[in-house]
């Protein structure tokens, strides 16, 4: 008897929307609100009739919200797929069935990524109709890239430890901080060390930089894409290898 893992995909996609879609929207909404407040952006800035300056502010705010959503959605795509599934002991019952843990978890992660892209696309469409037109394929592509990088890393970490979420936040923050202080570090003579560290860390800063091109539907330099995409793919492959070697928590 062969398990019907493909037929189970509908359940996994439904699980994403039931358990993770709303928390993703709330978490990214709160994070975006915090960032906007820190930058002094208010609701009155979002008036489309406010001229070129206002439109620029609207576009910048949207890009900020998009980047925040993409990071949160990427992490949420991996949330509950492996670490929590194992911690709660669900793996014992599911993997007594004729299914491969690698396939089951990877399928769940990929479907959550598709769910995140759908969620981002729907939100963008609503925004485009209500506020200001933006590139739907660009937004979808950006969320997919964030899923690959942030989600891929979260997926890998969740196969190793139950505390993957704080580690993920720490690693991503380290990369962003390193990028932010790159100039100061170079001036202090620690430029080489910073550069090496940044190559070892996930290129979250590249993802942040690319948000404008994606949101405006502009052509993106493939070389700029290669680093975050390659890093994410490497993480997913490593996670699959680890899952093959250690399918259960114990």
């Amino acid at each position: 008897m062969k398990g019907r893992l493909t037929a189970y995909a509908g359940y996994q996609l439904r699980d994403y929307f039931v358990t993770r879609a709303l928390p993703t929207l709330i978490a990214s909404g709160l994070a975006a609100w915090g960032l906007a407040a820190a930058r002094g952006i208010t609701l009155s800035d979002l008036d489309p009739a406010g001229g070129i300056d206002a439109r620029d502010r609207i576009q910048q705010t949207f890009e900020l919200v998009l980047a925040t959503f993409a990071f949160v959605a990427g992490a949420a795509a991996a949330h509950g797929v492996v670490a929590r599934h194992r911690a709660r002991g669900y793996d014992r019952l599911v993997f007594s069935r004729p299914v491969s843990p690698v396939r089951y978890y990877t399928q769940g992660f990929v479907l959550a990524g598709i769910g995140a892209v759908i969620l981002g696309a729907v939100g963008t469409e609503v925004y485009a109709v209500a506020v200001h037109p933006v590139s739907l394929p660009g937004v979808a592509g950006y969320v997919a890239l964030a899923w690959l990088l942030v989600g891929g890393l979260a997926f890998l970490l969740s196969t190793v430890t139950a505390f993957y979420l704080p580690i993920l936040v720490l690693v991503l923050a380290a990369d962003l901080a390193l990028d932010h202080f790159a100039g100061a570090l170079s001036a202090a003579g620690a430029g080489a060390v910073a550069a090496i560290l940044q190559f070892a860390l996930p290129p979250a800063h590249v993802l942040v930089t690319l948000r404008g091109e994606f949101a405006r539907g502009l052509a993106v330099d493939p070389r700029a894409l290669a680093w975050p995409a390659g890093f994410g793919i490497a993480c997913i492959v490593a996670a699959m290898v680890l899952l093959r070697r250690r399918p259960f928590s114990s």
Partner: protein
Amino acid sequence: MSTASDAGPAGAGGTVAGAVIELSHVSKTFASRSASPARALDDVSFRVAAGEVGGISGPAGAGKSTLLAIAAGQLRPSSGSVRIDGIEPRRFVEREGIAYMPQPLALPGGWRVADALTRLAVLSGVRPTYTKHRVEAAMRELGLYDDRRRRVRSLKGDARLRLGLAQAIVADHRVMILDEPLDGMGPESLDRLRELIVRLRAFDRAILIASRDTAELQRLTDRVTLIDRGRTRRPSTPRRATPADVEGVFHITLHHGGEHVLAVFPNAISLGRSTYAVRVAGFGPLNQGLRELLDRGALLAAVTPAHAAVDTNALAVNEVGT
């Protein structure tokens, strides 16, 4: 009568024909950062053949659940060998799947009973056309039909155990491993479990049950292995015949044609409801007799390996014609 289990564990790679679950000199040590490594199992061996129901008994903390998790391929032994149908358990599970009831039963609390069973039937490979039927049949058999819309988190004690059993029988697996199915089970559910084990007993199915209730386990199973603190305290002793026996007892249920049974199997014993216990000298004579029975116009409904000494002697008073 001797079974493969009496002969002691097979050596590495020496799988005995007919043995479905086979653990040989299995030890398991759990590493600990704070204390010294804990030895959960120490040189445990046993075998459950096809058509057999095996039992593992012992007090809490004896290592029963560890043993079952190893048999189910969810834990790797520190040493020793484990085989299901001659291959490594994890490979067997990924190829065929097993009916496994872990303890505790962990399922997402938000799932509804029918939904949980449907999901697990899909993962088990039950064909789409049969899924609904199998799920409903499992719920009815375990008395869960009225609870089908309840959420898993609302099920407690006995109902949760019945859900554990229902998910195990929702698909037709050749290997069944049940961890503490009796723990907290009410009398009505216990009756259901007894009937279930009798129904599931089949030529090609091996059933392994672990429980603290040794007395009940002896009623349910063909052999009970007693373990304590990870070591075998009493090696398994066969209580009933198995299909691996040279001479065996089988239950034959007929739809009609019961009047021909005595002519074909002169030693047949009527068990009522068109079911007969017959003693034959192996599979050859059994099949020959069944062929003859069919030739005489009987319609066969079921054939299962049955009891030996204890139960057939007890039933001897009901011989055909008396």
